[in-house]
Every structure is written in C-alpha cells, then in structure tokens.
C-alpha cells in the first residue's frame, strides 16, 4: 500500500472553516493521510508541517480574497526548504472580486502552483487530479 500524505489549510488571516472541514473529510475518504492545519495558516506553518510529515502535496485554500497577497513567495520558500517536488495546489475564491478565472489561474501558475481551481470546485475534481499527479489509482 502506498498512502500519500497531504497538508491542507486556509492561508493568511482567512477564517472560512466550512469548506476546509469538508475538504479534509473528502480527502480522507479518498484514502489520503490528511494533515489539516485548519484556518489562518501562515506560509511557515504549511512548510513546517510538510517537512515534519514528509508530505506529498500542500493544498492551499483561500476564500476571503487576500489569496494573491498571501500566496506570494510560498513556492520560493518551499524550494528553499527543499520541498521543490512537493505538489502545490490552490483553490477557493483566490482573488478579490469576480474575475475571469483564466487570469487568476495564470497568476497562481506563475507563482509556482501546480494546479489552480476556480471558486466552488468540487473536492473530487482535486482528488482525481492529485491521484493522477501522484500516480495513485
């Protein structure tokens, strides 16, 4: 067996807790080992938890609109910490306002995220992708 570990959390000063709880539940049901940092997680906490648990992926949620400001530099920090191979996903309402998703996606891909999801994406979409990316079935 080959259980993968993922870190999930809501970044920054964001307290939207409902989606986070469901996300954790869904990933666990799908067979992942989930380390749920909850809400209001800063970049260092994500990285610390990933190192500590030898995680395969970090899944960042941001709902409240400051995602753009909060996520800057996260990839660089990951690389610094030797986590360049850890997958980095982002989802939620990543920017302030109703923006064309292509723009938001571009922004976050440019910041070094592997995958980016629009508002309200079903967790199962993310689960299917991560299974592909991590080569689990």
């Amino acid at each position, binding site marked *: 067996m080959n259980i993968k570990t993922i870190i999930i959390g809501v970044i920054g*000063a*964001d307290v939207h807790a409902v989606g986070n709880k469901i996300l954790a539940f869904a990933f666990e049901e799908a067979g992942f080992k989930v380390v749920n940092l909850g809400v209001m997680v800063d970049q260092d906490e994500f990285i610390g938890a990933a190192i500590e648990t030898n995680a395969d992926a970090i899944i960042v949620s941001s709902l409240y609109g400051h995602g753009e400001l909060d996520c800057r530099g996260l990839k660089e920090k990951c690389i610094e910490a030797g986590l360049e191979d850890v997958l980095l996903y982002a989802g939620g309402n990543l920017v302030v306002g*109703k923006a064309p998703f292509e723009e938001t996606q571009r922004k976050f891909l440019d910041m070094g995220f592997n995958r980016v999801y629009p508002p309200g994406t079903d967790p199962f979409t993310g689960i299917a992708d991560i299974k592909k990316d991590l080569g689990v079935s």
Partner: protein
Amino acid sequence: MELVNKKLSHDEFYSIRKSILKQWPTGQAVDFEEAVRYQLNIPKEKQFSEKLIQAKKSGRTLIQPRAGVALIDKHIELLNYLVDHGEADLLPTTIDSYTRHNRYKEAEIGIEESRLAGRSLLNGFPAVNHGVIACRQVTEAVSAPVQVRHGTPDARLLTEIAIAGGFTSYEGGGVSYNIPYAKKNSLEKTIYDWQYTDRLVGIYEEHGVSINREPFGPLTGTLVPPCISNAVAVIESLLAAEQGVKNITVGYGQCGNLRQDVAAVRSLEQLTEEYLKEKGYDDIIVTTVLHQWMGGFPQDESKAFGVISWGAAAAALAGATKVIVKTPHEAMGVPTKEANASGLLTTKQLVTMLRDQVMPLTKELLDEINIIKMETRAIVNKIFELGNGDIAKGTVAGFQAGVIDIPFAPSKYNKGKVLPARDNEGAVRILECGSLPFNKELKDYHREKIEQRAKIERRKVSFQMVIDDIYAIGKGRLVGRPR
C-alpha cells in the same frame, strides 16, 4: 484582569484607552470631547439609531448592503453609488481582513498595492490605517447613516477611530466576532475587549450621542440553529447594556424555511427585550436585522437573485427592522458596485411590495416560536448558572462546557460537537446536540424531525446529510436530498 459583567470603572477604562490609542499612529488623532461635539452635529437622518427607531415605529424594513474597498475616494464612490443606484437606506463600511486581525502593516501594504494596481486588493476598508479624518470624509460624503461591519476580535482601536470618524453604528461582540472569526483568540479576552467597545459607546450615550450597536447574528452563517444565534444575541445584548449601550439591533441569518425564519426573528426580539427587562435594563431600544442566507450561494447570478429575494421576503414577512443584502456575485467574489446595487434593488422591490403583509401568528408559527424560546432559555439560563449569575463568566464557562456551541466555527474555544441538519421541510434542526443543555423532550424533538427526513430519503441519519445540506442552496435546493 478578571472578567465580570460589570461596567468598566473609569480608571480601568482610561488606563486601557491610553495604550489602545498608541497601537497605531492614527490612534493619536482621537479626541473624545471633540468627537462628541462632532457626533452631536450629525443630522438626524444620518444617525443610525434614529433611523432604526423610525423604521420600527412605522413597520418598515430598511435595506443595507455590505461594501468596502481599500481606497478612500473609491470607497466614497462605492457608497454613493449604493444609495443613488441601489436605493440603500443604510450604509456599511466593511473592514478588510488584515485590520480585523490587527495586522495594520499588512493592511498598509494592501493600500499601497491597491493604489498601484488601480483596484482594491483588500477585501474591505482599512479604517484604522486611514484614520479619523478619512473616516469623516467618508461619513460626510454620503447621505445615509453608516455602520462599521467587520469581524474583529480585538476591535478597540477600530471603535475609537470609527466613532470619532462619524460612524453611528458599530457591529460585533466578544462572542460573535471571536468564535466564527478567529482560531486562537481567548474568549475571556475578546469579551473583555468588547466591554471596552461597549463602554465607549456607553460613554458617548452619557454625552448625548446614541451609537447603535449590533451583535453579529449569523455567526458562521452555515446552518446555525436559531436558538444558538439567539442565545449569543441575548448574551451580547446583556453585556452591552451593562456598559451603557442603549440602542441595540439583534440579528439572525436566514435559514430558508419561512416559518422558522419568521419565528426566529420574532422570538429573538421578544427574548432580548425580556432578558434586558428582567436584568433591570429598562430603557433599551431593541430592533432586529435579518441577514439574507449567509452560507454558500449558487454561482449562477439569476439563481442568486432567487436566494436574495427569498431573504428579502422572509425579512419583510417577519417584520425585521432591516435586512442585510447579498449580491448576485456572492459565490464568486467581492461584488462590483453594480452587482451590489442590483441585489439591493431586488430586495427593495420585495420589502416594499410585501410591506403590507405580515405573517399571521398561526398555531404552527407559535409552536415554532415557543420551541426556539424554550431552547434559547435553556442555553442562556444554564450560562447564568455556570457563571453564578454572571453572564460574562458564564459565557466563557458555557463555551468550555459546550452548553453553547457554534457549528463549523474555527475557534478552538468552541467545542465543535453540535451538528445541524435540515428537517424534511428545510428547517434547521440539531442532529447532534453535543452538550447543549436540552431536556429529553427537546432532544427527542430534534431527533424525530431529522429521523422523519431520513426515512423519506430512505437513508440513515449521518454526517453525509450535513454535507449535503451545506451544498444544497448552492445547488438549487434547500434540503440536501441524496441524488
């Protein structure tokens, strides 16, 4: 510091005040005497308390948006737009999330970046960073009363700046702006800090300035059973009253079943008045606010209009004094001013159209009201008991014991054992009562209601129901039926 529900002494208040005003440079500009004079000069039609009293008297439901952007001129433009093109009766100034967490440096960066980007990178108006003068520019530039809306656990500096800045209403409370809005802030500390806010409002009252105070009703906005939000409203009203607050608006986040929503608003008003009287606060004016559905919205804008309308209808039929309005962009992001105005206009059409219809007090409605009252009293009375008669102490102990417990809240001071789910008619009931101090009769009532639904759906009562209900309105349903 020892938390008790007692008016802060002069010395205590002013010693805290000194350090508070130093938290950020703009604090130094606050001059209480001058601010009182300033507030006394605000015309009646721009005073929140006054406008609410009028509305309550005439049985009208006022409409109010949420709105706030990073830059002053843009924020003024936004508010004026919402009056001119959205027919807003009352205005908000929604504060950004950095300010809510007292991260003024990050807010400063957000202001700078917003200037450079030509659009708001903050999700609200950073009032502390902008300071008193800027706040006055805002409140003077508009024709309606303006309220500060936020979600700030420690809001003391913000309160000082906001009231000196001409805002005439202030949202929040030590419970309602902690448990749903914070992760690690001690409840004891936030209740204590909000005593400061309430005391400041009380001192303004003593100087003839009536500032409206509004505990945040919807909490996590997601399937919160009426008894829980009502209990918080009663608690925060009592805490505020003790500090000298005189004009209080208690709130409720719409759940979606009309009868329950009407019952929730009516019982909320009655219970708050009742407890205030009982505890000897005789001269307090209580009004109500219904928040249009506060949980996940449908992405489609036309469908969002349906949800918005249903909230407007519930507010009107319940006879709420005001309604806080959502927008067709809700599921997507902070709305444009146009989207915001359109949510307002939809709401305006309905509250004025339904103005002359009230929901009659039928037996069914009365039953629902009585259940909510019974539950709320059970919670509040238990909290008094745990606090040996002190509601402040009792609240801290109550959360610890889980006798009050807010579903889905991020705070570690919340037990998080209570799980809500809808019954077969879509009313929010309690699937898992945790440590709520309910007698067997009440517990059985909830259980039966949910069992009834489960039977019709031919499945067992389970957490899956809760998940289905969280998604339901976003997917066009009220009850999250299995597919």
